């Protein structure tokens, strides 16, 4: 990752003055600083998450201008509602992704189907978040969900990518895949049930090793 010019600009102040780089602060601490109104920590927070937030918006909207507007709205919402973040429900990155997805879906209900894009998204899955700031815990969480997605039959995985990442409704999935609406609904429901079971199993397995 390129050198963050902000770090140099604020190095003479407070946390930075003592040699603690902003990048070493946890996601939760950065969010607290952002939501409480600290401008330097806000810049660091936005820079840490902007590619993930923008990526979620772009996946749903498929339009860079619309995606930027939604990404901005998502950061504004995170600033307003930072105090409602609950670490027990997921990482800061996941929380931001959910905010962004919901805003993006509300923005457009007429997303065009692009089957090639679905294949590309499925192929890109194993990578997961790989930025230096990404916490080990979040990386593990990412591996769990991608592993679970890869265990799904292809038609169900496609339905989940279309609905879960591109924000398509069941009828849009049906049109994109040239299948009946009932089949699309069944694929989404069955796949979500399997993912939930897989993740629950991973969670139990993880704790049985404690």
């Amino acid at each position, binding site marked *: 990752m390129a050198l963050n010019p902000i770090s140099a600009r*604020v190095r003479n*102040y*407070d*946390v930075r003055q*003592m040699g603690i780089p902003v990048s070493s602060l*946890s996601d*939760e*601490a950065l969010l*607290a*600083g952002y939501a*409480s*109104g*600290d*401008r*330097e*920590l806000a810049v660091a927070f*936005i820079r840490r998450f*902007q590619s*993930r937030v923008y*990526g*979620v918006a772009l996946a*749903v909207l498929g339009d*860079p201008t619309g*995606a930027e507007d939604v990404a*901005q709205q998502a*950061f*504004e919402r995170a600033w*307003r509602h930072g*105090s409602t973040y609950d*670490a*027990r429900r*997921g990482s800061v*990155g*996941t929380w931001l*992704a*959910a905010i*962004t997805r919901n805003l993006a879906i509300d923005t457009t209900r007429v997303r065009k189907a692009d089957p090639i894009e679905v294949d590309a*998204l499925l192929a890109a*899955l194993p990578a*997961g*978040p790989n*930025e230096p700031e990404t916490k080990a815990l979040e990386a593990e969480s*990412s591996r769990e*969900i991608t592993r679970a*997605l890869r265990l799904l039959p292809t038609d169900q995985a496609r339905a989940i990518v279309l*609905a*879960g*990442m591109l924000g*398509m409704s069941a009828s*849009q999935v049906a049109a994109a895949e040239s299948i009946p609406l009932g089949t699309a*609904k069944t694929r*989404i*429901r*069955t796949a*979500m*049930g399997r*993912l*939930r079971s897989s*993740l*629950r199993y991973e969670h139990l397995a993880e704790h049985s090793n404690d």
Partner: protein
Amino acid sequence: MTDYTRSDSHPETLAEMALGVLDPEERTSVLTHLASCPACREELLELSAVADRIAAQAPPAEPPAGFEDRVLARIDSQILGGTSALPRNRWERADRRTYKASGSRRSVSWKHLAAVAAAAALLLGAGAAIGSAATGTSSTVASDTTGGWSASLLVGPSGPVGRVFFDSDGHPWMSMGISASQVGTLRCELVSPAGKVIVLGTFQVTSQGGYWATYIPVSARGANTVRLVDTSGKMVATATMK
């Protein structure tokens, strides 16, 4: 609950609801059902957690240059335009704070950053960053009577091992730094004078030390003792908040 083949009496669209892709009419129907069905509410919560993790798997993409400036400008306009329900001084501009921090008017964000800075300083062994250096005889090392923050020593069996900073302004929160003498996973608990224990969460202490911050839930109001407990249940440090 684990069976996703549901009976007719329960909606089959909870997965679509969790993914946020259900059309408004169907959503209304599901919401009506949820009002009287705890099992479906629980299932929706679980499916929503899955849906959120799926959304987070979208490939990252760099936004156009200057994105963060536009986000900050957007938030500035919310505050200055008076459309925000938040206090206007919530967003403290860096330049103003840098030059006025030593004055009588300390902003909330200044206090927050001071707490973070002090906790961070501890990790480097820089000693007390706020107020006078602690001697170990008094657990509270500094406080700000005009605001809501205070700093206390985290004391282990053989002496001080870190500090905890508490800010009661707005949404109360606390941050703490602990030395590398307690490497491993620590659970943070708040204890009320009546003995009620509220678990706030866990964090890792590495060979570089540990730093953690969290909001304090309403249920923990009145609690005045912070406890850090290791995975075996042994209390490794405690601090008393003013």
